Structure formats: structure tokens, C-alpha cells
């Protein structure tokens, strides 16, 4: 493990991205649109009465929280990694004396550092605009923070593993899109999972998708019992472990198989 190399990559990319703040803030605004749409739709829908334990204030808080969590966990490098494998430009990264994953990690950290303050500011303004009532508990916030770290790691590994499949299939961007759609459906974006029909809700609890966005949000809102929190960490930890092993395997096999022509 070449940690110094990794840190240097993060630093270098951070400066690069800071110089293009405007671009990333535009992107971040785009990423925010979908949750804002669902916020507006749902706050209209619950105007007649609470649904699944969520009243109007809960729905607004839920989606404002979700915007931040979504931004904090959304990985960006899987598209570029798949693209680099597809057109052969990944050769340059393979030649460097640091593990391949460092390049992706460096970018992830840099993008998040650039985007999060901006997104948080917008969310606070939105919250003030909706006159949302907010009560915070230290314990709930700490659990949510831990869940957020799990979520970011899990979401990154899931997308990164899929992008590595491009070593075999040349193109993996359609599969990446399928993955993004599943996140949209099953991670609590289209509606809080508590509003889902029972069977679908149970299924969602087992799949990795709930743990990449919804779980930290539910924890932050204090919607979970101690047992639910425990099982949540156990399931997402299991998925992380499995995907980490898979990523290692795919990187090893894939880079051996990889060939490219030209310079």
C-alpha cells in the first residue's frame, strides 16, 4: 500500500477540481433536481394526512436530508473508469506505482470536498424556505454519520465493481445505468421506503440499495429502533465485505486480461 502516493493523488485532483468549481456546482444542482421534485410531489400528497408515519414536516426533512446524503455518497468515477477501460486510456493509470483504485478514490474525495459545502448551503436555504421544524439528537446524528460512511463505501464499491466489468465486456455503461435506476427506485428516492407495499419493503431491506441512501437518512430522522439499526449495519457490512472481495478479484483478473494498442 502506497499511502503517500494516494494522498498526493487526492491533493493533486482536489486542486484541479477546485479550479472548476462552477462546473461541479452545476452538476450538483442537477443531482438535486430529482429529490426536490419528489419533495414537492410528496409534500402535496401528504397535505391530507400522514402516510406511512410521515407527515408534511417529516417528508420535507426526509428529502432535504436525502439530498445531502445522496451528494455525499454519489460516486462519479465509475463512468470515467469504464470509459478509460473502453478506450484504452487506463493504460496511463496502470503504469503508475499505486494501486488502480487510488485514482478513483482520489477523484471521489476531491469531488465530494468540492460539492458538499455548496449542497449543504442550498439545503439549508431550502429548509428555511419551507419553514421546516428540526430537532436533533446527538446519538441519532452519530449513528447517522456512521451509516453515512458505510453508505458511501458501499455505493462506491457497487458502482466501481460494475465499471470493472468493462475489462470483459468493453462497454459497461448500460449496466451502470441500470444500477443507478435501482438506486433511484430502492434507495428511498422515489418515495420513503416506509410508504412502499409490505412485500417490496421487505425485499428492499435485504438488497444493498437501501443502505446507500435511505438508511442514513432514516437514522438521522430517528425513525429506527435499536434492533433495526443493528441489523442495518450488519447487512450493509456484509455487502461491503462481499463487494470489496469482488473488486479485488476483478481488478486482479481484469488487469491481467487487459490489452491495449497504441500510446
Amino acid at each position: 500500500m502506497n499511502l503517500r502516493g494516494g494522498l498526493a493523488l487526492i491533493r493533486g485532483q482536489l486542486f484541479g477540481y477546485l479550479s472548476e468549481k462552477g462546473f461541479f456546482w452545476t452538476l450538483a444542482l442537477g443531482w438535486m433536481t430529482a429529490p426536490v421534485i419528489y419533495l414537492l410531489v410528496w409534500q402535496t400528497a401528504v397535505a391530507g394526512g400522514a402516510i406511512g408515519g410521515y407527515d408534511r414536516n417529516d417528508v420535507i426533512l426526509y428529502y432535504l436530508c436525502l439530498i445531502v446524503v445522496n451528494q455525499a455518497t454519489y460516486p462519479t468515477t465509475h463512468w470515467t473508469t469504464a470509459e478509460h477501460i473502453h478506450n484504452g486510456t487506463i493504460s496511463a493509470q496502470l503504469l503508475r506505482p499505486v494501486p488502480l483504485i487510488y485514482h478513483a478514490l482520489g477523484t471521489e474525495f476531491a469531488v465530494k470536498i468540492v460539492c458538499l459545502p455548496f449542497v449543504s448551503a442550498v439545503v439549508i436555504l431550502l429548509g428555511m424556505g419551507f419553514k421546516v421544524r428540526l430537532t436533533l439528537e446527538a446519538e441519532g446524528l452519530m449513528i447517522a454519520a456512521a451509516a453515512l460512511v458505510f453508505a458511501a463505501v458501499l455505493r462506491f464499491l457497487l458502482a466501481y465493481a460494475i465499471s470493472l466489468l468493462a475489462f470483459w465486456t468493453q462497454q459497461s455503461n448500460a449496466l451502470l445505468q441500470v444500477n443507478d435506476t435501482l438506486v433511484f427506485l430502492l434507495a428511498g428516492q422515489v418515495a420513503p421506503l416506509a410508504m412502499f407495499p409490505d412485500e417490496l419493503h421487505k425485499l428492499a431491506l435485504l438488497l444493498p440499495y437501501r443502505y446507500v441512501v435511505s438508511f442514513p437518512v432514516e437514522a438521522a430522522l430517528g425513525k429506527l429502533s435499536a434492533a433495526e439499526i443493528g441489523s442495518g449495519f450488519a447487512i450493509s457490512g456484509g455487502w461491503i465485505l462481499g463487494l470489496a472481495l469482488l473488486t479485488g478479484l476483478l481488478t486482479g483478473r481484469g488487469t491481467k486480461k487487459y490489452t491495449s494498442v497504441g500510446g
Partner: protein
Amino acid sequence: MSIMRYFRLIGMFIRAAIQNETAYRLNVVMRLLGTGLSLAGGIGGIAILFHNSGSVNGWEEAETLAVLGVYMLVLSLNGLFVSPSMHKLGGMGGEIETGTFDYTLLRPVAKQFYISVREWSVWPLFDLAVSLGVIGVAARRMEAELSASSLVLFLLSLVIALGILYSLMLLLSSIAFWYRGTYVLWIMGDLLQTGRYPIGIYPKPVKLLLTWVFPVGFIVSTPAEVLLRKSEPVTLLAGLILMLILFALSSVFFNRSLRKYTSASS
């Protein structure tokens, strides 16, 4: 240059697109899966919404489904060639950014025609078929009769919608000539998502914004309303005038922006 030559060129662009994309077979299967999933997502979202409440701001489930169908239809038509062509011009890694626009300028064909139709994507055809199915199902659930005259009006409103969308995208991609690094085109798709639901569902200020500032209203809602026979002829006329103005504006802006282009490399 004869009109036929333009059509032949379009045919060639489409053939090239098919050859490009069918080369990766697993990707094709995944695209199909993606279409299925986004359909499931759209319908699922509406089902959950109305499972819990009978009507939202005066909109029934079948009507909302029809709006979703029209949204998917407009988006798939846009995705066939307008969106891919515009992204190739002013998107991320597009020609203006990389400097390969030189080669485009040198081609012996009308510039605006070429940059508008050269890049095709075949996948939206799946979405197109699915969206027609959704509209059909919604129409049946509402027991709406589709007469010839309402279909003609619907087609007219679709042309207006696409014209407005095209003009907006041309305006946004032309901005790349003036200020490199603003990928405003990217968030276009995100903003369009507001059309998934009838704009009548949104709070008043948002609704006004979506009608007059970013006209999702004319792009998705008006065709849907024409289909549901909820629209007034005045809306269609207003849309037509807006389209003509935007089209003229964006064409002038694009051609003016061309002069701004300085090649990035040799």
C-alpha cells in the same frame, strides 16, 4: 444542394449509429433491462403515490399515467438524435471543448443542419415503443375516445414540444462557444424530469416557473392536456408562437457564436 442529399446523409448517420451500438451485445441486453426498469420506476412511483391518496391536487391516477407516457415519448424522441448531437457539440468532451470542431466546420454541408442531426442513438426506440404503450393503457383507463382530430392536434403539440426543446438545447450548447466549462446541457435532462408529473401537482410558484421560465409545461404538459382534452386552443397557439421565437433566437445565437470559435489545437 438538393433536399434528397440531406435525407441520404441522415440515413447514413443512422446506419453508423446502429453499427456502433450493436457491437456490444451485453450492453444491448442491459439497455433493454434499463428501459424496463425505468418504466417500472415511473409506474411504481405513481402507484405508490395514488395507493396512499385518491387524487393529488385534482389529478387522477390515469391522467398522471398519461402525463408519464407523454413525458417518456417526448424524451425518447429527443434522445433519438437531438440530445446526442447537442452533447457531441457542446457537452463534456464535446467538439467545442476538445477543438475537433475544426473538422466539422470544414465539412461541405450546412452547419446547423449537420450539428443537429449527425449523432443518433437507437436505444430510445425501445422507450418510444414503451411510451406509446403507456399512453394507450392510460387512454383506455380513462375511456377516452381518440378521434382523428384530437390525434392531429396531439401530433401538432408534439412538434411544438420538440421544437421548443431543440431550440433550448441549441441555445445551451452554443453557450459553450462563449464560456468553456459550463456544462449547462447536462442539467437539462435533470430539469426535464419535472415533467414526469403533471405540473398542476406542484406549488404555484414552481408551476409558474415551469411554464414561463423553463417551459416544461409546453414540452410535456400541453401535449398531455391535448390528449386528455383538457387544453384550450389558446395554449397551443401560445406554444407555437413561443417555439417560433425560440427557434429563431437559437439559430441566430448559434450562427453568431460560430464566429467566436477559435480552434483549440491544430
